[in-house]
């Protein structure tokens, strides 16, 4: 980017600046449709929920540190345990990776100026925030969900759980699901349609493939959760019968529908981590990913096969053996795309000249933990072993290694990696390495002993345990590990906060990354790119000639699109430019729709169904108002 920009180019940049600038201050944030600002909103919100979920985890660990402890009452324990799971999964990992990372990065990586539906993007955020607050209101009312994150019936039926606890869960997750569905549609269309000229499918960054797979999974997985929750609410509050045997229902129906969603869900959690790993590894190994097409295919395959394995969560429910065997076979198959990727990552590092900076170290930790957690996953596919280990701490160990170690580590690494892009400053490398080792050791110490106590017979979801079974020492070490882990996390956040204000300036591309987000300034301007970049490979930022051509085009005024709020749309497979879209700007209506929807859900919770209908009407009116502002057409 050494070529200097001259007078006419600068004029054009100024014009873009004027067109894309958003109102300042709180109002600006409330009405924003800029994917970067929405990404940041997601980031801070999910971080807060992470803090909440983490505090819940620490309380759990404190209670379990020794036998017969009395830190938490059984009821409080159940609520914290459930909220911990629900928070971490629905309010932290998914919105963090999809909402924050996806939102901020996808348009930048594909060379677009915004998401396909910017206002719907804002709506997704506000709905997400509202659903999170909705669920957390229950904590302050001491009526938090308390039947575990998969909320099995009959325990969750009114007979056994008469309070509002489960209604918060069911309505909150339906609410949350609307937000995720809107986000997923937005990502798919963005990835399909807004790619820079020349970025055909096979040149799309692997991060985008991962996000595409995630979004597709959400589209097909969420409905079964939603409908399951609808059944639950209908049964709890209106006396329908889906889950009780006496009237022809079946408690296992809940489980089938839940896991039909729940297993794809776990790949929804891990896929963004794959995406982040495949962004960080090439940059610091200074080479392209090995077996690129295979990795892209694997990302899509894992999401696809993930739909056929759900009953492996039900191996002890007494389904016919033939059914179990089918699902075990599918669970074995789903492993293959993961092994492909694990070897692609490690071989890429081995073949490159890797520079072990903090982001890459986190990816190293991710690979170690992913393999560890994945291997215990394979063990569960051996039915007799699963039938012994299921519902014990062995399962807790499996999924924390694979969720915390494998899904969250890349998120942490990604925070370091893209920090210079978002803030324009560098983080502190030494502190970052220290924080890696703390979290790494903490994670191993927290979750590894869980395998052992699981085999020693400790069931999960117990608020306490007797001293006679020899579980105490392991539990204590887990608790100590959790606090070490927390120290590591706090160090990361401290590093980022400190560097935000004191870090050295980063420049546009401190790590020489290969994808397009590094082709623009740090932080990126509201319009992302002064010129829409054109692309000829999967690592366009390493094609220096193309980037010089961008500057030349700015001079000529080609592909600058400074006639309005514009971004190009292209064909789905080959990314041939098709039309120039006029994008909507900031709008108050998404927030208004979210407010009406929140009131709707509050009314459903308090069983004022008629009032709820009124708010549904208001929400529709707000949607109408939103759509009555049309883009200018020429």
């Amino acid at each position: 980017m050494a070529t200097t920009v001259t007078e006419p180019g600068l004029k054009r940049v100024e014009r873009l600046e004027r067109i894309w600038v958003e109102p300042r201050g709180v109002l600006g944030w409330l009405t924003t449709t800029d994917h970067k600002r929405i990404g940041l909103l997601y980031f801070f919100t999910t971080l807060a929920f992470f803090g909440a979920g983490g505090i819940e985890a620490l309380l759990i660990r404190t209670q379990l540190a020794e036998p017969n402890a009395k830190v938490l009452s059984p009821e409080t324990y159940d609520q914290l345990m459930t909220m911990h799971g629900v928070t971490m999964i629905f309010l932290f990992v998914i919105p963090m990776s999809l909402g924050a990372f996806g939102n901020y990065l996808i348009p930048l990586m594909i060379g677009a100026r915004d998401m396909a539906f910017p206002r719907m993007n804002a709506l997704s955020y506000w709905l997400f925030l509202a659903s999170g607050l909705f669920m957390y209101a229950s904590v302050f009312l001491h009526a938090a969900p308390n039947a575990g994150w998969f909320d099995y019936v009959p325990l969750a039926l009114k007979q056994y759980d008469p309070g509002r606890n489960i209604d918060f869960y069911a309505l909150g997750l339906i609410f949350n699901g609307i937000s995720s569905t809107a986000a997923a549609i937005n990502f798919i269309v963005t990835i399909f349609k807004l790619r820079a000229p020349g970025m055909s499918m096979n040149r799309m960054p692997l991060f985008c493939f991962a996000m595409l797979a995630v979004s597709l999974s959400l589209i097909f997985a969420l409905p079964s959760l939603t409908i399951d929750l609808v059944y639950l609410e209908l049964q709890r509050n209106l006396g329908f019968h889906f889950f009780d045997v006496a009237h022809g229902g079946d408690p296992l129906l809940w489980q089938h529908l839940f896991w039909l969603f729940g297993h794809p869900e776990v790949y929804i959690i891990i896929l963004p981590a794959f995406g982040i790993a495949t962004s960080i590894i090439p940059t610091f190994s200074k080479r392209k990913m090995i077996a690129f097409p295979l990795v892209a295919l694997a990302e899509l395959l894992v999401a696809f096969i993930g739909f056929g394995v759900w009953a492996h969560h039900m191996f002890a429910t007494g389904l016919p053996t033939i059914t179990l065997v089918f699902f075990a076979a599918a669970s074995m198959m789903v492993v293959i795309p993961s092994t492909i990727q694990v070897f692609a990552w490690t071989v890429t590092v081995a073949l490159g000249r890797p520079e072990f900076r903090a982001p890459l170290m986190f990816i190293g930790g991710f690979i170690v933990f992913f393999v560890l957690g994945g291997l215990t996953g394979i063990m569960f596919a051996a039915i007799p072993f699963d039938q012994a280990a299921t519902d014990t701490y062995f399962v807790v160990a499996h999924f924390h290694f694979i969720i915390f170690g494998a899904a969250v580590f890349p998120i942490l690494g990604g925070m370091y990696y893209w920090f210079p892009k978002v803030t324009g400053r560098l983080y502190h490398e030494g502190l970052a390495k220290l924080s890696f080792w703390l979290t790494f050791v903490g994670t191993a110490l927290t979750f590894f002993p869980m395998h052992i106590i699981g085999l020693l017979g400790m069931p999960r979801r117990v608020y306490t345990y007797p001293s006679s079974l020899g579980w105490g020492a392991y539990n204590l070490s887990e608790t100590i590990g959790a606090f070490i882990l927390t120290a590591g996390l706090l160090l990361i956040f401290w590093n980022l906060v400190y560097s935000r204000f004191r870090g050295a300036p980063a420049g546009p591309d401190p790590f020489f990354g290969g994808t397009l987000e590094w082709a623009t300034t740090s932080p990126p301007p509201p319009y992302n790119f002064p010129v829409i970049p054109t692309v000829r490979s999967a690592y366009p930022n390493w094609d220096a000639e193309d980037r010089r051509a961008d500057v030349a085009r700015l001079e000529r005024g080609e592909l600058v699109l400074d006639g309005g709020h514009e971004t190009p749309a292209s064909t789905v497979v080959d990314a041939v430019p098709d039309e120039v879209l006029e994008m909507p700007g900031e709008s108050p209506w998404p927030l208004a729709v979210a407010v009406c929807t929140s009131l709707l859900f509050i009314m459903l919770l308090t069983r004022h169904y008629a009032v709820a209908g009124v708010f549904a009407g208001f929400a529709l009116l707000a949607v109408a108002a939103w759509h009555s502002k049309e883009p200018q057409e020429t």
Partner: protein
Amino acid sequence: MSATPAAVARVERARLARPNGWWGMAIFVATEATLFGTIIGTYYYLRFNNLHWPPPGVPEPKLTLPLVLTGLLVSTSVPMQLAVNAASRGKLPRARAALLLAVVVQAGYLGMQVHLFVHDVHEFPPSGSAYSSIYFTMLGAHHLHVFLGMLLILWILLRTATGLTSYRMNGLRATAFYWHFINVLALCVVGSQLSPLA
């Protein structure tokens, strides 16, 4: 508003790929289809869990009226498609007429269906058995979709009162697509509803 129907027709002809709005709707339809797939799946799951379906005391579904009504509803796919074709060639009045026809028929359908629904609720309330629970959930979800689809048409009719733009054209295309989907659903739903007769 500088756009004219002729300009819209020009844009339509020049397009290489389907617009964002169409894709958005297509993916929305995919998730909706999954939703209905799950509901219908539940219907059969519960059915095979029960010896008597419908349970004793609950009348079997009637055959002719639901079939006739569904046929009527499905036929509205024709005017919907006509509206799209007309509009994309710049013929707005004709498109509006077709939309109006469709929405009137749909309203008739919905009115009849709601009437039948209420009648059935009195006869065998959803709190009676798993059969009636899933029966009413399935039909209710379907009616809700018909209602939303009608709102979309009414919205398009309202907007196109002041002329046609590419933005509205995209909206119309998406709405028509949604209606074709609802009609396919209607067939699946009525098929399941009547399945105990088979």
